[in-house]
């Protein structure tokens, strides 16, 4: 399902009496999401990402703008009619229901639309077909024995799982007594003939009513005006077995099958998370929305769960929107990232591009750990200066003037390194910290905007405290206009 957000705006009205101004939570957001994509809304607290998500869900009314699901405009459609699944930050699992009931709840509100079949015929035909495979049936029933004795409910469950039939049909097969018979094959043959007779009688019954059955036992009835026999469409609720099948399938996907009988307060945070995902997925929605789903989990579980989410999304191909303030999360699993700040979109690109090619200062600063180092600089005669140091020369023609210069931590090289491609910058190294794989150098420079400059260099590098000259990697240096903070390309 494609999602299109057109000029989406949300303004929370202020309070004239208390002197509070209107808050513009989302400002003219325009985003296109392709079918099957996992996109992340990334930004600091209060940037409007959750607000946007809730507008897509239908829980908040936009002040202006449009939301399109495919070719339907759903801007004002009630949330229950949009066909979405939502995973809340606090899971919002119904505390008084078991996990099973939580997951099955959405299904109780949906209907099935299908062509009518004559279920009796279907049942008889299925039994006839299954009876050909007597040996396996007996094996399944015996395999489900508890303490060596035949147990009706476990046998019925086992047959349901194996053949994807309803419990009523399983029960009937079980009652044939194949497992207890001395000669199951003989018994099966007798029963087959019985059922065949029943089947033929049933077909005759239908034909007497003036209808026909096709090969798959769909009921064909004649239209009043024509002579053509057609299938008829009917709507009905889901049967208990069908709900059971859907729930178990969803539980299998999120790997929560062993906990179906527990209540939410008996589960750990990670497990509750998975139940929430299962509940959102069970109704096969066209859109899946996740509101900071990992923020309540501990660090290790966070990594594990985000991989799960990626895996599930790949397997089901559901268009997914994922809200987070953690850039590492967004970078690792999303197909596309939308970086937001105070309600507006700052950049929408693939994760690598957002990192390697930031469009403005905010995006550059937001992504990357440790964050990008920003200096005061200026452009003079197509060259970029930070203080006295000439950092880069530009191929394009640039206007003179003050700029922000951003250099990624990994963009610094100790001078003896031959790979240096651009100019140099002198920094006063204050500390050298070992991080295992890398070294972090904490430095100072009078043109630096901020506390301390942090560089990452390879641990083999010989770095010492004191004034050091560093060469720079050109692709790690970005220039931003001082006033608009937009990227200046060179």
């Amino acid at each position, binding site marked *: 399902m494609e999602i299109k957000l057109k000029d989406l705006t949300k303004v929370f009205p202020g309070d004239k009496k208390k002197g509070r101004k209107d808050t513009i939570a989302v400002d003219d957001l325009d985003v296109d999401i392709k079918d099957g994509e996992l996109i992340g809304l990334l930004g600091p607290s209060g940037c409007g990402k959750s607000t946007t998500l809730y507008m897509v*869900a239908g*829980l908040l009314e936009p002040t202006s703008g449009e939301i399109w699901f495919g070719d339907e405009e759903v801007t004002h459609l009630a*949330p*229950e*009619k949009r066909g979405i699944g939502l995973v809340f930050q606090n899971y919002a699992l*119904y505390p008084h229901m078991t996990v099973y009931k939580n997951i099955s709840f*959405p299904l109780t509100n949906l209907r099935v639309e299908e062509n009518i079949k004559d279920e009796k015929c279907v049942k008889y035909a299925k039994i006839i077909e299954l009876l050909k495979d007597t040996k396996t049936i007996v094996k399944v029933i015996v395999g489900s024995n508890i303490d060596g004795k035949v147990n009706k409910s476990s046998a019925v469950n086992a047959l349901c799982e194996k053949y994807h039939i309803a419990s009523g049909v399983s029960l009937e097969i079980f009652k044939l007594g194949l497992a207890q018979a001395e000669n199951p094959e003989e018994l099966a043959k007798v029963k087959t003939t019985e059922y065949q007779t029943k089947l033929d009688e049933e077909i005759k019954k239908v034909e007497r009513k003036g209808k026909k059955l096709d090969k798959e036992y769909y009921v064909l009835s004649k239209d009043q005006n024509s002579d053509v026999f057609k299938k008829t469409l009917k709507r009905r609720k889901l049967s208990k077995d069908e709900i059971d099948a859907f729930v178990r399938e969803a539980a299998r996907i999120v790997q929560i099958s062993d906990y179906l009988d527990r209540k939410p307060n008996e589960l750990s945070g990670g497990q509750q998370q998975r139940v929430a995902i299962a509940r959102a997925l069970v109704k096969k929605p066209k859109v899946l929305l996740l509101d900071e789903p990992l923020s309540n989990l501990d660090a290790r579980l966070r990594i594990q769960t985000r991989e799960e989410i990626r895996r599930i999304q790949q397997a089901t191909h559901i268009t997914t929107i994922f809200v987070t303030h953690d850039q590492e999360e967004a970078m690792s699993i999303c197909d596309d990232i939308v970086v937001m700040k105070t309600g507006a979109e700052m950049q929408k690109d693939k994760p690598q591009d957002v990192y390697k090619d930031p469009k403005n200062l905010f995006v550059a600063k937001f992504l990357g750990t440790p964050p990008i180092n920003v200096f005061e600089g200026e452009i003079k005669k197509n060259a970029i200066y930070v203080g006295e140091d000439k950092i880069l020369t530009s191929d394009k023609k640039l206007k003179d003037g003050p700029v922000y210069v951003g250099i990624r931590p990994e963009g610094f090289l100790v001078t003896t390194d031959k790979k240096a491609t651009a100019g140099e910058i002198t920094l006063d190294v204050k500390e050298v910290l070992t991080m295992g794989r890398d070294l972090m150098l904490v430095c100072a420079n009078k043109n630096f905007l901020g506390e301390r400059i942090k560089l990452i260099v390879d641990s083999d590098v010989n770095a010492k405290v004191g004034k050091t000259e560093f060469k720079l990697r050109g692709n790690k240096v970005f220039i931003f206009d001082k006033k608009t903070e937009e990227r200046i390309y060179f």
Partner: protein
Amino acid sequence: MESKNNWKAWLYLAPVLILMAIFTFYPLINTFVISFLKDFDYRSGANSGFTFDNYGLVLGLVEKVPGIPESKITEFVQYALPNTFIITFITVPISILLSLFIAIGINSVKWCKKFLQTIFFMPYVTNIIAVGMVFAVIFGDYGIFNNLFGITGTKWVTESASWGNSMIVLCAYIIWCALPYKILIFSSGLQNIDKQYYDAAKIDGSPKWKTTLKITIPLLSPQILYIMITSFIGAFKEYNAVIGLFNRNYTASGNVHDLTTVVYYIYSQLEGNNPHMQIAAAGAVILFAIIMVFTVIQMRVSKKRVHY
């Protein structure tokens, strides 16, 4: 530091303990004891020994004057107990359902919530007896109730009214008095339900009525249980409403006290110059026992359905 507090704490508790001992613990035991005494004189404390007769008298099993079967007092079993059960089993379910409906209604509308809550709470702060008298006038022989519905001549609360009519008005009044407290408790319980559950239910496609039935009410079950237990106890002890409405416990259709309740019965034993303490005590103990039994039943039954 911990043991130092030990004795001082008892000083702080001294007033409470002394007063509770005199006015709560001692009476509890004493009432229990009195109910088993024969010919108890409350002024002197004299009695003629242990007996079950008081209970027998109350339950109509024993003759008041030995040898005369007609002296069996059946007022309690014939009138007080049934009346009280009728009142309880009619008013408690109706008032709980009504107050639940009103509380959910108030919670679901956008404007005037506080205003509505205030209006519905007003009966709580008023004098049950005073308003009972007003009800008596409304349902009086010339009252506006008859006028409004054009059924002049129907007698509801005056002495010549039928027992049935009087009971109807009594139950209606008790429900009127019982609504505010329940509405308040349910309202505050409703406000404590996290709004996210409603959002989740919306996303899950649940229509409003289903959400109310399957989500709101189960989440309200602790309050519902509390209200069920307390209203049952309250209804069973009903007394002020009868005083307010009728100021007597009989209709004129017989010489018997056919409008009496259990508590009315107990207090009526204390009137006059020669109160029958021991009978009142027996009645009180029976009342206590019935309440306990039903409370335990309710708590047992609710174990499965109440979710915290």
